[in-house]
């Protein structure tokens, strides 16, 4: 009984992950095409670490860059979708275990979700 419902939760999670990855990959590809098409000049120097431009370091920066159809911002958005995919899976766990009335595992999932959210909020 619980095994079957567990299985349903697992399959739902699996499908969600698949959709997230496909969507993210398509956005990254579209951004890549734009980036390569509009790029002028020589290959950027990746030998020495300077850090990515500030516009690609935050969700806000990436979103505002997308409005001007900047290819790298679109790639960045695809990457954000990719990062969001497993986080959604954990959220799925919180909801799913609550529906299964498994309070302990709903709490475990919530703990993981909080750690993930904190890792984005606390910047060091």
């Amino acid at each position, binding site marked *: 009984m619980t095994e079957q419902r567990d299985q349903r939760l697992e399959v739902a999670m699996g499908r969600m*992950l698949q959709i997230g*990855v496909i969507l993210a990959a398509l956005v*990254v590809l579209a951004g890549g095409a734009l980036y390569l098409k509009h790029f002028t000049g020589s*290959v950027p120097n990746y030998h020495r*670490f300077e850090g990515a431009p500030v516009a690609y370091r935050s969700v806000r920066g990436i979103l505002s860059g997308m409005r001007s159809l900047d290819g790298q911002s679109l790639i*960045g958005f695809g990457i954000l979708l990719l990062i969001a995919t*497993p986080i959604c899976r954990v959220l799925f*766990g919180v909801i799913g275990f609550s529906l299964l009335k498994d309070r302990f*595992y709903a709490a475990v999932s919530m703990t993981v979700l909080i750690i993930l959210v904190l890792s984005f909020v606390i910047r*060091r």
Partner: protein
Amino acid sequence: MSLLSFTLAVLGCSILAGLLGALTGLGGGVVIVPVLCLLFKIDLHYAIGASLVSVIATSSGAAAVYVREGFSNIRIGMFLEVATTLGASFGAYLTATVSGNWIGILFGVVLLYSAWASLHKVDLEPTMTQPDSLALRLKLMGSFPTEGKDEVYTAQHVPAGFGIMFVAGTLSGLLGIGSGAVKVLAMDQVMKLPFKVSTTTSNFMIGVTAAASAGVYLSRGYILPGLSMPVVIGVLVGSLIGSRILVRAHVETLRVVFSIVIVALGAEMIFNGLTGRL
């Protein structure tokens, strides 16, 4: 070299890395980082940034397949993710305080260990032991269908497994890899879970673990969109092809050949780290 040819070269190598990662069971991240550093002379921090993103993609992409097989255990996965995400946040924090050369040396050591572990897959016969009371209380158990009947299993040594998972998370955050080999070590060898359950649950956990260091990587500027693009797409495509081949072909000889490649990459990372070239 123009940007297009550079991107295509990185794409090609990433496909190969994904293929190699899938066939050896090590994951693409562990292969692409040394390739980017050693072959393309890309800074280590950029390499681990691109790798981390590709690790999330391959883990999530493969999870759907594994879940359908019914081997992965979401309870055990979710429970241990508390340890791996904490570890990953700590590891990501460390990347700024530990020098690139030290990260490179550690990377090489992990590569060597991973190659060794992938060649020494001892499928332990499940020994009948007293069910771990902590595991029972935490419901760290499950069953999977084998030869028509369900095989039941319960986790052992939960605190030790949890601790090793924290280390696996730290390595993931510090090196931008999935650290699947260490996760499997914790579940298969320490918690005595069936091998199939360990490998599929490990894959399931890798995406969430990597996501826990992604925020830090992003804000520190490790993730370059232009570089990450061919790496993510390439590793994803390569690992999808690899997992298809795995199902059909007998790969024991391939595994040995590839392990030699991994050992060579690991040795070169250590050498470059020791001589201060990373």
